[in-house]
């Protein structure tokens, strides 16, 4: 018996469209869902949510304390929400001597409703494989050269807990109001891929 060569995979655009047709045909995918979901994700699950939390923590010591004790409640207090499988938000406080860094070695988990959708590099295999074992080297390659005295704490997201980093406030921004501070908080700084020390006043 001669084995016939398997057909090559169809282009991914076609495969995606095929599943859309099937789910629509079975009455599972309502008209307009794709557009509404995509718009909601782009408009609501944005980095500025976390930015507002960080800016408030920098300017309101009582909020900072509540946030470090119960990140979920601190996010809800600001009007932000979580999907069912994000059952706890833990906020990790950076200091001049401690640097926290978040990863999901098994897939791609992030607190996306708070810090925005994960960037490509976070979901790539290089970051997932290397950052737990070569944390200092990988960060240096990404442009964050930490002094040898800085303690690195890596957090692998493996359950329904989500993490975000509370970055150190840039010294040059001392005394700024929260509204002016929120926009300087980047997604990378809440993942721990960068720090904000360089931000100028």
């Amino acid at each position: 018996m001669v084995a016939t060569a398997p057909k090559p995979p169809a282009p991914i655009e076609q495969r995606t469209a095929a599943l859309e047709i099937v789910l629509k045909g079975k009455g599972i995918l309502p008209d307009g869902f794709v557009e509404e979901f995509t718009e909601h994700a782009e408009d609501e699950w944005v980095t500025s949510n976390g930015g507002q939390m960080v800016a408030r923590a920098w300017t309101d010591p009582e909020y900072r304390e509540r946030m470090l004790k119960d990140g979920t409640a601190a996010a809800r207090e600001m009007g932000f929400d979580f999907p069912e499988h994000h059952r706890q938000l833990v906020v990790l406080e950076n200091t001049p001597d401690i640097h926290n860094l978040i990863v999901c070695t098994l897939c791609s988990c992030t607190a996306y409703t708070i810090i925005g959708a994960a960037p490509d590099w976070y979901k790539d295999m290089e970051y997932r494989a290397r950052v737990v074992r070569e944390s200092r080297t990988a960060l240096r390659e990404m442009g964050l050269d930490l002094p040898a005295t800085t303690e690195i704490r890596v957090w692998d997201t493996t359950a329904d807990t989500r993490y975000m980093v509370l970055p150190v406030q840039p010294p040059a921004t001392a005394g700024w109001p929260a509204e002016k501070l929120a926009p300087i908080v980047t997604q990378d700084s809440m993942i721990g891929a960068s720090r904000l020390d360089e931000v100028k006043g």
Partner: protein
Amino acid sequence: MDSMHDLGGKQGFGTIAYPAQPHDETWEPLARALSAISVKTHIYNMDEYRHAIERMAPIHYMSAPYYERVLTAAATLAVEKGITTKEELEALVEGSFPLALPIGPGRMAAPPQTFEIGETVRVKYEFVSGHHRMPGYIRGKTGVVVGISPPYPFPDASAHQMQATMEPTYDVRFRSTELWPDSSDEAFNHVGVFQSYLEKVPQP
């Protein structure tokens, strides 16, 4: 499952593509939305979704972009749950529609036990053929509990259509130099470890 997805600590990977480059993949938001509606309509839960990605053939897993893995999981589970068939999907495309490999058995949670903040614990040296959320790099390793979560559904059962009991996870702190002796940068590695994966360490 000791498959390709368990990447933590694997060697040979190159530079991280940082910062992200803009790219135009119009099918990606569609793939994401199809997965979202499938979860919303309870075709599958998040644990089944994760395990379907893990069950992709190794070469397919390693070569597929992120959202192709999302799409493959959604299509695989739609077929396995009787929503559609591989033939129906392939009739709509020019070529094959590769799906993930068949699912094996899951397992129930271990009897309840409790651990405290500051307690030294060991990750059980066990090998699970189905879905689990213990990265291979902590198997059999010892660390210190630094956090306790609310109860979450036990993924080893939840991914396999079994009744998933709820149990806490423990954020456990490991030293990189104990996970990979003489072969890592110095750091503290934290993993959210389900209660069933942990065991007591006899006190001296």
